């Protein structure tokens, strides 16, 4: 039986556990054993993005150690955490002959959730069903960071009963940007406004994302504006039968 490691991410763990459960359900249905290394915490992206390299390094070392003792591919329901493993860990350890190879070994085992399903398992139809229109917001780090776009779209196209409607200006950032949303709230607010008005234009009641960060941000904005649209992680849609 294939075993994978789930890196659930700190945001899913703390705010959206249902996303993690949906990932586990889907993988189980595909006959895959899911292991959860209990020492995992956060990937260190907030620190890295803020420029706190020492802090980011401490967390990266912790994460690498945690997963070095496990076997199988690492699957994470987040494009931005996958991007952190794949591109930023090597950047943190650049020139470090002990840690760089370890960081690269971790990166090579890591897959964003939809990437793992489509590219590694060759699965595009999960037998999911849905009722009504949905729209897809490509998260920046999924789309441009790790070049994953075809995979979530293929998976969504095979959800029975779901009508996939195009989100206007879909590729624009929602304004989360991790710490930017608190360091530059005025900027962040403008992009959020635009993202929400584009969502309204799409007329879809549900927006699907691949990152808990975007979800937290857009859903937080929708709640503040008292809108009825929902934001969901793609795993939750795909596990719906």
């Amino acid at each position, binding site marked *: 039986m294939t075993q994978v490691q789930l890196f659930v991410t700190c945001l899913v763990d703390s705010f959206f556990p249902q996303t993690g459960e949906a990932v586990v359900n889907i993988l189980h249905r595909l006959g895959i054993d899911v292991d959860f290394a209990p020492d995992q915490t956060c990937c260190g992206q907030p620190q890295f993005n803020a420029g706190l390299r020492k802090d980011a390094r401490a967390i990266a070392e912790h994460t690498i150690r945690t997963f070095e003792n496990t076997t199988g591919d690492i699957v994470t329901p987040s494009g931005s955490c996958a991007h952190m493993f794949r591109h930023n860990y090597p950047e943190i350890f650049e020139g470090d002959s002990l840690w*760089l190879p370890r960081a690269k070994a971790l990166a090579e085992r890591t897959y964003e959730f939809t990437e793992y399903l489509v590219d590694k398992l060759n699965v595009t139809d999960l037998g999911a069903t849905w009722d009504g229109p949905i729209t897809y917001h490509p998260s920046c780090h999924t789309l441009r960071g790790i070049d994953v776009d075809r995979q979530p779209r293929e998976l969504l196209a095979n959800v029975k009963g779901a009508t996939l409607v195009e989100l206007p200006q879909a590729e624009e950032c929602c304004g989360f940007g991790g710490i930017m949303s608190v360091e530059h709230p005025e900027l962040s607010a403008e992009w959020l406004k635009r993202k929400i008005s584009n969502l309204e234009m799409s007329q879809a009641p549900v927006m699907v994302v691949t990152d808990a960060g975007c979800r937290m941000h857009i859903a*937080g904005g929708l709640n503040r504006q008292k809108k009825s649209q929902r934001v969901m992680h793609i795993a939750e849609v795909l596990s719906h039968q």
Partner: protein
Amino acid sequence: MTTFRKRILESINNENLQTALDNNTERRLKGRAAAFESIPDWRERRLRANKIRADVIDNLNAYLEKFIAKNEENGVIVHRAKDAAEAIQIVLNIAKKSPQSRGVRGENQKESSRKVLVAKSKSMVSEEIALNHALEKENIEVIETDLGEYIVQLRHERPSHIITPAAHLKKEQVAELFHEKLGIPYTTDIPTLTATARKVLREVFLTADIGLSGVNFGVAETGGVCIITNEGNGRMVATLPPVHIALMGMERIVPNLNDLALMLSLLPRSATGQKLTVYTQLLHKPIQNQTRHLVILDNGRTRLRNSPLRESLYCIRCGACLNACPVFRELGGHAYIGSDLSIAPYPGPIGSVISPGLLGENYVQLAQASSLCGACKDACPVNIDLPKLLTRVRAGQTEERGKKKDGAGLSSSTKFGLQMYTRIATHPKLFTASQKLAALTFSLFAPRSQWIRLPAFTGWGYSKDFPKFAGKTFRERYKGKHGGRETSIQVDKFAGEQVGRFEGEQVDKFQSEPVSQFIHELTALSGNVQQTNNATKDIIEFLKTHNISKIHLEPNVLDENLLREAGIEFTSEPDPQIIVGVTNAVCGLADTGSVLIVDGALHASLIPEIHIAVLKQSDILPSLPDAMHLINVTRAAVFVTGPSRTADIEMTLTIGVHGPKEIHVFLT
């Protein structure tokens, strides 16, 4: 709130600015996308361009040596400036030695007592070193001749965009400005505004003592200096005044003409959505009766080259990252300020890297204003990893390795919070305990809600609510269902191998007939093409129907006896009164509709309102790279791609600025 944030908020609340910026963004993004469709192998080109730039920066000193030696061979006077002060002094010294300054130019007393006049085409390096201000202090008159630059100079502002300097203004503001400063009746008609600038600036070109320009590329192998402009002002300043000063950043080198051709297939497409800029000038030797100085500037570039921000030197200044950037779209160039409140010379994603990189800590705060969304990296024609560089600026890596300051430009509260979180995230037990504590605290404050409304000062609370911590975290739920396990931590050594991933498409060669493609492309740019068996006869007919009796003619192009018989006067000397110039075209380019004009034909193809070029069908070549060998042997050459144009006011395309309003190609 920091002044930077206040400035951002002012920009956001400035409706005029927001409309102007939305216009700029939309049109530029569309234009760029359309232009790239014509080179389906652009991904592969972009990787090649990246490699070329990397090689240049790696071997910069060797390339510069070659470039400088070639220029000296070509009769160009080369100066090197290590910083802004030196560059300014060099220009001042040249100005002081100019004929005007010595009082020998001009025919009467009044003329010779006027200030030294410098006609300037757009140069970001001159903005970087604040050259205009320094020259004006020394009683030298500097006039910007790019329409957008001219507008911001009249408003005493800095350019707000590296390609479209007046991108922040609406036409009503330009109308008011021209009414007030140039004394014309108030009008928002963009062609009228453009024509007014043309008239005023034409006088400047004709009387300037010195022409000053930037440099887009320097070609190491030949010493060629490439300057591209749409309006024609770059050609004017480089060929009309007795002295031309070209000011270039020391990194602006390409190894050879083939590499230049590749860069030129990417730069205009990225910058303005054009296949080729209207005037692509390549200067090798000074033209007759002209002195050319080349000033090569370091000003922090050597330091940048030795720093982790080295890759930012690959930049070819197209401005595509500005147009793609959601931050720039809200701010415009003027809100990119340093902690001393000065406006950064370079805005946008690249500016947030090189402004602190070249000019120091004052500008590090700019790099924090980014979501690292990566739209800039996607847009970059030389594939610079801008998000990575932004995180390096944030990590204090603007200095050479070793002197790093973590969290540059970060607010102290965020820094404190993140450092607390690091402690938690490196201790799993503390992590789970904190999750519980946070969930508990949350339910105390908002027992029934899924969301909590944080106050605005927290940043998050400004425009969105914060989600409830899950009563049971994922790990708790998972443990409940699947049983838990304890991990014992052992450190193993891995010997990982990196797998490089490259992708590229095969070059798609255009197969259609060159002549019809040439006609199609030039016509699309509002140029005219006429096929003819007898160029002189048909041109005479053209002149007759336009009531033109005198032309500026390049020698040996037309049958001069036939012209005389038809009563057409002609001269080979520049004369501002003449409205038609007739030249030979050395070759045509099928894929862009360009014609190559060289040496003796430069003025006849520039100063008159109508340019007629005679081109042999057999001289139409497929594309720019096929023509590069032809310019190697010329003093100066220019690829002309349509009539002169600008989009500096509200991104509205206006035909006919400084160069000809019409171009007619007679194909023989």
